[in-house]
């Protein structure tokens, strides 16, 4: 994705509050533009336009997305986490994404390039993207989606001790899912005639997600990569289990980096089952080490060939308007 990152930065100017104050006619135009959005969306947009405070952005962006989502899918957005996918979960196609972009541009008075849209797969991506645009920050690496095959190809940990079925990794953290099948070998003895996922294994699963983050999402020094053979568990703090998890439960795991300084990386982690909290770890710490990066072949014409899961697995290429003329 190097070419996309460069393009992004070129167009990524900080938001500037226009010289003239937000006038009554601006408010009227804004009201008209957002007439099919919720009142709170309009209010957030007004506050943003008046103050330039980026805290109002998520409400504006989510409100605009909501307006273009079919009514029967809007409930998903109500209690969405940042992992909600635009195409797969919300049914937004590339043309609808253009409509969203045009309205966001209009309301926030910014312009967004086609190239910048390519990597927006989730609601969280969109929020982060707009936030970076407005603050004038470099855009983060795009979220990568990794199915089990790719996870297994990357990880030093292998079945039957790998507790991730799928994962998404961005520079802000990682999310994953694991379904307790009931076939796990340790459930035969944990407990007798009463299979319960061991809390220690749930902590292990969070640790595995942190390993995946270190290998796929963490920033490294130029020319270096984190070596899979150097990552080991060192400690954890504030681990609490809240819910008994059994075969059939789908664990939704998330980790976020708290501190990272060679050779230690500390994460916070949480596991949910549906909306229920299952376990948390205030801190999980690992050691890691660097190895020299091996140069990878560069595709001709900068085509976005997938190398080592660089662009996610086989998810649909998002938001290039495929247009027949």
């Amino acid at each position: 994705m190097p070419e996309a990152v460069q393009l992004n930065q070129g167009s990524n100017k900080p938001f500037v509050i226009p010289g003239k104050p937000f006038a009554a006619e601006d408010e009227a135009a804004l009201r008209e533009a957002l007439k099919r959005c919720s009142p709170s969306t309009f209010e957030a947009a007004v506050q943003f336009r008046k103050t330039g405070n980026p805290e109002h952005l998520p409400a504006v962006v989510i409100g605009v997305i909501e307006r273009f989502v079919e009514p029967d899918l809007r409930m998903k957005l109500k209690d969405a986490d940042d992992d909600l996918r635009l195409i797969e979960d919300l049914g937004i196609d590339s043309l609808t994404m253009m409509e969203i972009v045009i309205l966001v541009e209009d309301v926030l008075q910014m312009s967004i390039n086609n190239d910048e849209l390519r990597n927006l797969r989730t609601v969280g991506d969109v929020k982060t993207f707009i936030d970076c645009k407005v603050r004038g920050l470099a855009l983060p690496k795009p979220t990568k989606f990794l199915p089990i095959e790719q996870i297994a190809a990357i990880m030093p940990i292998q079945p039957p001790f790998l507790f991730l079925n799928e994962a998404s990794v961005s520079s802000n953290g990682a999310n994953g899912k694991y379904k307790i099948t009931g076939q796990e070998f340790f459930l035969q003895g944990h407990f007798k005639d009463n299979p319960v996922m061991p809390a220690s294994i749930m902590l292990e699963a969070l640790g595995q997600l942190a390993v995946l983050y270190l290998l796929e999402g963490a920033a490294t020094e130029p020319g270096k990569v984190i070596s899979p053979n150097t990552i080991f568990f060192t400690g954890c703090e504030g681990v609490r289990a809240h819910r008994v998890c059994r075969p059939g439960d789908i664990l939704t795991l998330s980790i976020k980096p708290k501190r990272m300084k060679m050779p230690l990386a500390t994460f916070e982690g949480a596991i949910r089952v549906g909306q229920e909290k299952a376990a948390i770890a205030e801190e999980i710490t690992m050691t890691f080490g660097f190895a020299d990066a091996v140069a990878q072949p560069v595709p001709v014409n900068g085509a976005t060939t997938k190398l080592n899961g660089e662009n996610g697995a086989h998810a649909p290429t998002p938001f290039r308007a495929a247009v027949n003329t």
Partner: protein
Amino acid sequence: MPRVFITGLGFITSIGNDATQVTQSLRELRHGFELYPPFQKPEIPVKVAAPVRGFATDSTDCEDWSFPARYSIKREVLRGMAPHGVYAWCAMQQAVEDAKLSEADVSNAQTGLYAASGGSPYLMGHMLQRMHTLGVMRCSPLGIVASISGTVQFNLVAHFKIKGSSCGFASACASSSHALGFAYDDLVLGRQKRMFVVGAEDGNMDAILPFAGMRALSLQADPNLASRPFDVARDGFVGTGGGVVLVLETEDEVARRGVKPYCEVLGWGQASDGHNVAISHPEGTGLRAAMENALRATGTAAEEVDYVNAHATSTPIGDLSEAKALKAIFKTPAARPAISSTKSLTGHGLSLAGAMESGFCALAIRDGFMPGSAHISKLDPECEGLNIIRSTLSAQPHIALNNVSGFGGANVSLVFKQTS
């Protein structure tokens, strides 16, 4: 050569939004004219139009539009449509139901769709204005698809999952007759088994008023007098919009599905004036040749024709030109067919005209009537000798002819026959 039949019809027109209403209006000569509100300004000399009822499509934002409760159209479908796309979509729903077609009958490699419309000047104007004021990247992503000529088939082909032939026809007021003619050819040639033929127009201010510049529109302020084809005092046409869909099928498909057709499409003919970009040939040479070609191609003698649905739009030059062509074809005064222009009730639908009036012919043949030519108080002496019927006849036409003439001097004549 396989025979071809009309097995389904759908109507959104100024005289009715389904076949039943349309038939009643044609029989009782109920017109669709009104003092069209957008025209009621001092600077607009044109006052009368024949808008479609039951739809509100006067906003540039399709989510503001409303349509009769029996239709439900999703936003993602609506966003690529012009007003006439919605009319055609609704007419298509009717036609599919009317012909008793299953989803598999509609969506297969042997079923195609030919369509005609003039595009949407209204949405095109809006989009260009937006582009000039807000910049090129702020135009609606589907603005082009909704506004250019071809928008009807883009939408219907995609949303009804048409897999066979599809394209659009652009010969102005002859367009949807060309669509019907070439659809017939595809069926006869064995390329398709079933064809949808669609004609549609916005029929709003931006679609109609540009014709004022060429002095083609009636300036009459009385809705009862504005459209009066063949009357000596006619002064131009009255604009209308809508959408009409016809289902054409080969005899094998008719037999396989066991449906009762409205009538047979016997064939068609076309010819051009080679005369003027916008004015009919004064002697009607092109239209006369088109009728001759249609009669010859279908093996029909002029004396066999019972009814002619004339193109006559109520313009001084056009009606006269057609009258001369009709006299040249139907030479024996005693054997002249009943002639009427149903534009005296609907107004002129431009690209919609051929499909709409072919649909009227199908209704007339099935239901056994010939609609009268309304609003004639004094027949133009030049039309004397033609059997222009001023009231509806309760007689079944055995063979009916539908004429259209378009810009550039394009003329098409279609022949329909009672199913024996």
